[in-house]
C-alpha cells in the first residue's frame, strides 16, 4: 500500500484545515466517541462516523445525526498518491481522532508545506511532517514531524459498501437553503426561544423556517429559492427537527460552501447536502421529531 499527500499552497493548507475543523466539530456531536473513520481512495478521502455503518439510515431514536463527507484529494492536495494493496483492496480505512489532526494543523501560522503519510512507529501512525518558514529571511526553515496514532479498520469488520455515498434517490423535493450567515444567526436566535423547528418547502421555491412555543411563534419566509421537484405528489413538504441538532450542524460548517441543499425524503429524517466547488460534498442527516 502506498500513501503520500503534500500541501504547498497556503490556500490549500487553509482549506484542508477548514475541512478538518469541520470534521472535528461534526464528530464531537456524534453519539459515539469523538473518532472518525477516513477512507483513503486513489482520488478521494471520505470522512464518516464509526457508527454510520449502514446506508439504510435506520434511526431508532429521535434526534440522531449522521454525516458522510467526501473530498476530492487530487484537487485539494498539491500532490496526492494512494495505491491499495491489491485490486480488491483498493482503499484503506483508518480510525483517527480529528482533534489531534486539527491541533497539529493549527500549531503555528508559518507553515511552508505539509506532508502526510502513514508510518509504522511502534503503532501505525498518520505522520505529518511540517516545514515551517524561518523567522527571518536568512534563517533556515525547521521541520517538525507529528505522529498521530491511528487504527486500521479491516475490511472484514466494516464492508466497503457501508461507506458509499448516501443515496438521494427517494428525494421528493430539494431546495437550496438561504446563505450560511443568515441561517446561522436565525437558528441561534430561535434556539434561545424554543426546542423544535419546522422546515417547510413548496414546489415554488418558498421556504419557511418556523418555531412555535407557548410564548411565541416565529416564522421566516424565504422566496424564490432554487428548487427541484422529483416527485410530484404534494405541493409542500415539511419536517420537524431539534433546533439544537440543526444548530450543531450549522455551526460545524467551517468551510465556505457554495450551496447547502435540504432534501425532503420521507418524514423520518432531513438530508442536507453541503457542496463546495464540486470538490467537497458533505451529507448531514438529522432524524426528525415525529409528533
Amino acid at each position, binding site marked *: 500500500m502506498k500513501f503520500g499527500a503534500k500541501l504547498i499552497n497556503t490556500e490549500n493548507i487553509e482549506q484542508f484545515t477548514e475541512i478538518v475543523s469541520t470534521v472535528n466539530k461534526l464528530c464531537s456531536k456524534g453519539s459515539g466517541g469523538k473518532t472518525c473513520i477516513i477512507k483513503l481512495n486513489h482520488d478521494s478521502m471520505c470522512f464518516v462516523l464509526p457508527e454510520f455503518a449502514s446506508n439504510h439510515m435506520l434511526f431508532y431514536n429521535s434526534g440522531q445525526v449522521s454525516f458522510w463527507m467526501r473530498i476530492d484529494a487530487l484537487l485539494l492536495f498539491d500532490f496526492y498518491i494512494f495505491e491499495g494493496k491489491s485490486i480488491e483492496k483498493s482503499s484503506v480505512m483508518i480510525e483517527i481522532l480529528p482533534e489531534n489532526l486539527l491541533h497539529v494543523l493549527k500549531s503555528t501560522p508559518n507553515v511552508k508545506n505539509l506532508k502526510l503519510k502513514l508510518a509504522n512507529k511502534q503503532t501505525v501512525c498518520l505522520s505529518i511532517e511540517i516545514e515551517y518558514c524561518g523567522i527571518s529571511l536568512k534563517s533556515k526553515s525547521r521541520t517538525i514531524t507529528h505522529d498521530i496514532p491511528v487504527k486500521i479498520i479491516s475490511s472484514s469488520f466494516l464492508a466497503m459498501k457501508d461507506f458509499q455515498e448516501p443515496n438521494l434517490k427517494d428525494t421528493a423535493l430539494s431546495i437550496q437553503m438561504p446563505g450560511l450567515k443568515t441561517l446561522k444567526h436565525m437558528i441561534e436566535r430561535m434556539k434561545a426561544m424554543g426546542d423544535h423547528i419546522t422546515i417547510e418547502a413548496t414546489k415554488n421555491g418558498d421556504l419557511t423556517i418556523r418555531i412555535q412555543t407557548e410564548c*411565541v411563534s416565529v416564522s421566516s419566509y424565504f422566496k424564490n429559492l432554487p428548487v427541484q421537484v422529483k416527485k410530484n405528489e404534494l405541493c409542500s413538504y415539511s419536517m420537524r427537527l431539534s433546533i439544537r441538532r440543526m444548530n450543531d450542524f450549522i455551526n460545524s460548517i467551517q468551510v465556505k460552501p457554495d450551496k447547502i441543499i435540504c432534501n425532503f425524503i420521507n418524514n423520518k429524517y432531513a438530508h442536507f447536502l453541503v457542496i463546495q466547488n464540486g470538490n467537497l460534498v458533505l451529507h448531514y442527516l438529522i432524524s426528525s421529531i415525529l409528533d
Partner: protein
Amino acid sequence: MNTTLITRSNEGEKYLLYAKLDNAKILYNLAKSVNFKEHAVFCALDSGLKISCEDAKSTQGIAFVHTDLFQEYSVKEDCVCIKINLSVLIECLNIFGSIVNSIPTALKICYEGYGHPLSLLLEDNGIITECNIKTMEADSLVNFEFDFDRIINKIIIKSEGLKEALSEIDVSNDIIEIVISIEKQFLRLSSFGLIGDTHIDIPASSDYIESFDCKKTQVNRYKVSFFRNSLKALVSSSKVALRITDSGVMGIQFLIPIPELSKMAFVEFYFCPDEEIE
C-alpha cells in the same frame, strides 16, 4: 430603504397600536438596556413606547422610545399596557443579526388588543420574519414616588467618567456608598471590601462633571446590583443625570444618542437606598 413593507396610511387602522421603525436595532438596543428581568411591561402611550422592567418591587428600569424615533406611530387609546417576555422580544428583534454594510432591518409592530399577541414583522433583504409574542395582563408597577420637587441633589456627568468610576468599585461587597458633599464639592463612590475600602472622588470641577447641583450633603448606600442592571444603558449613553431625593431614592437618567436619526432616547433606573443599621 426596504420597499416591500408598503406604507399604506390606512393599514394601521385596525390596530390598537401600529408602529413602523426603519431600523429595528434602535428598539433592540433600548429594550436590551432594561432587560435585567425576563418579563416587562410594554406600554404604548401617545408620546411613544415605554418598556418597564421591575425586580422584586425594589428597582425599576424604563426605556422610552419617543414617537419621533418612529417612521409611523399610532395608538388608539391613551395608554395600552401589556406584559410580555422581554427576552423573547429582544431575540425576535435580532433575528437577522447585524450584517455589516447592509440596509438595516425594517420593523413593523402591530397589536390588535386584549387577547391578541404582539406582532412583529421584520424585513431584511427580501426575507420576512413574523413574530407573534403572547401578551399577558400588565402587573402594576411600583410607584417610586420620584417627586421631582423633592430632588435634593442632581449631577450631570459624562458617561466615560461614571464608567471609569464604577469599574474601580470592589465587588466583594454588595453595597456602594454615594456621597454628594456641598462642603467638599464632590461626588464620592465608596465600596467596603474584605481587603480594604475604596473611595473614588469626582470633584465638581472635573471635566467629567457637566453640572453639580447640590442643596445638601447626602450619604446613601445602595445595592451594587442595582447599578449593575444599568451597565448596558451606561455603555451606550453619552451623559448620565444622577438625581437623589430627600429620602435617598436614586433616579438615574441615561441620554442615549441615536446617530442615524440625529435624535436622543432616554433610559431611566430607579431604586431605594439600602436600609442598613450602621
